């Protein structure tokens, strides 16, 4: 058999034995996998990638939550959480974050209809409430330290300040990002890349709110219940 004859006989691989759901390989060659139509759009790619980043951030927070759970009782004879937590302050902080998230959502709506003024207004007040949250938290921290519950006192307080502080750092970075986005929207308008970044910012801000809900549940409420 010459080479060309060998090559011209139907090749067993012609039917592709690896098609999903077609064990015998017969039938049509239309495979119902993703990527059928080629690369996804930029909007999808950016959003997907940012979601992956948020998931990785959740894992970061999970480690801090886990360490706080492990160190719940490690107060080394010093003050405990329930003794010193101020539930009113926590409630106020929660309200600030929830309101700022709502306003952020409104800014997304305004951006969706390309309204410069209202986008800026809602973004601005998102930032104000975020800042209020931060100031309340700083006040909380200083009051705790003044009452003898600094992170250097025991492992429990170390983990408390780390997990709540990490969230606060994320909010701070978020506010910095917010300011930058406001400037970008103002100077560049609602270009596609600016819109993609606004979507990412929105995701980030709402995720911070979600983390806060988990945080005050695990740190304040469950800790309180103990």
């Amino acid at each position: 058999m010459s080479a060309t004859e060998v090559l011209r006989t139907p090749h067993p691989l012609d039917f592709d034995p690896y098609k999903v759901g077609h064990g015998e390989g017969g039938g049509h060659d239309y495979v119902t996998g993703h990527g059928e139509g080629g690369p996804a759009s930029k909007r999808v790619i950016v959003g997907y990638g940012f979601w992956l980043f948020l998931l990785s951030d959740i894992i970061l927070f999970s480690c801090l939550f886990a360490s706080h759970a492990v160190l719940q009782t490690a107060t080394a004879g010093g003050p405990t959480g329930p003794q010193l937590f101020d539930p009113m302050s926590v409630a106020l902080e929660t309200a600030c974050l929830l309101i700022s998230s709502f306003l952020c959502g409104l800014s997304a709506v305004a951006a969706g209809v390309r309204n410069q003024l209202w986008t800026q207004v809602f973004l601005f007040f998102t930032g104000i409430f975020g800042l209020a949250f931060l100031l309340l938290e700083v006040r909380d921290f200083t009051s705790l330290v003044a009452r003898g519950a600094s992170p250097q006192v025991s492992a429990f307080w170390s983990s408390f300040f780390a997990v709540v502080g990490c969230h606060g750092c994320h909010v701070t970075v978020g506010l910095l990002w917010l300011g930058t986005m406001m400037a970008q929207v103002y100077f560049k308008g609602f270009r596609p890349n600016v819109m993609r970044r606004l979507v990412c910012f929105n995701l980030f801000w709402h995720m911070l709110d979600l983390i806060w809900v988990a945080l005050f549940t695990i740190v304040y409420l469950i800790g309180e219940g103990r």
Partner: protein
Amino acid sequence: MPKSVADARDKICSLGVGRALVVVCAAAALGGCSGGILQPQGPVGAAGAKILLNAVGIMSVIVVPTIVALLVIGFWFRASNTRARYQPSFVYSGRLEIIVWSIPILVIMFLGGLTWIGSHQLDPFVPIASNAKDPPLEVQVVSLDWKWLFIYPQQRIASVNEVVVPADTPVHFFLTSATVMNQFFVPQLGSMIATMHGMQTQLWLAADHPGDYYGLSAQFSGDGFSGMHFTVRAVTHDDFQHWVAATQQQSGPVLDRNGYFDLLRESCNVQPFTYRNADPSLFAAVVRDQLPSGPGPYVGRAGPGVRPIGCG
């Protein structure tokens, strides 16, 4: 199932060639005359070594034929071999898949059983069943920078870098650390266990016969780590009583709080010595973090080129 380590060794060595087996044989042969973990001198070590060799044997059943097959197939199907049959469409075989998945699964199930039973029987916290008439000897172990402290609470004596025990008697170790993590390990007597500050671990060991057994720390603990070896001296029951009495009557140092603070200071390559009197509540105080932990190098003074005190 082989009944002793020696049997296991012979059985495995007779299974044939295989790089891994040759290694194990060679090591075992050398281990036979030089005191490694494959030449255990106590029941715990013997049980652990038996499991190790059994596991090697079980896995060799797959590993050796696999390596041989890889080499044979790699050689036979080389492109210059015209006698080999070229089968470019041999890309899937359901039957082969089933075999290829099920053989490792079966071996793992077997090993899993071995793991489950062995992990429970040989858990360091589980006591050794003993036929000896005497109750187990209690020894408290504290790892320091960079030596081992052994306290005999019932005899109220202590020793550093050497632990004398009666042979053929279970020894119940309680372990903690004054500083950083270490691992208490006597290769010929059996398993190792970590020592950690503020926590207490336990270990049961026994030596079958009198002799000197090398012990070391198996967790790096700082610049003096290499000097953290000690000797387990197993002696006859009478000799042990004599040693206890002699230690109590010598004019040596006393292990009270001050003696302990002296010992806390960094030192390396410490020659073995004993304390004629040891405070039996000392160990509990160390575990409960009622005593300061060991100082580090130049506490408070940081900078490049920090050296530990007292070590070369």
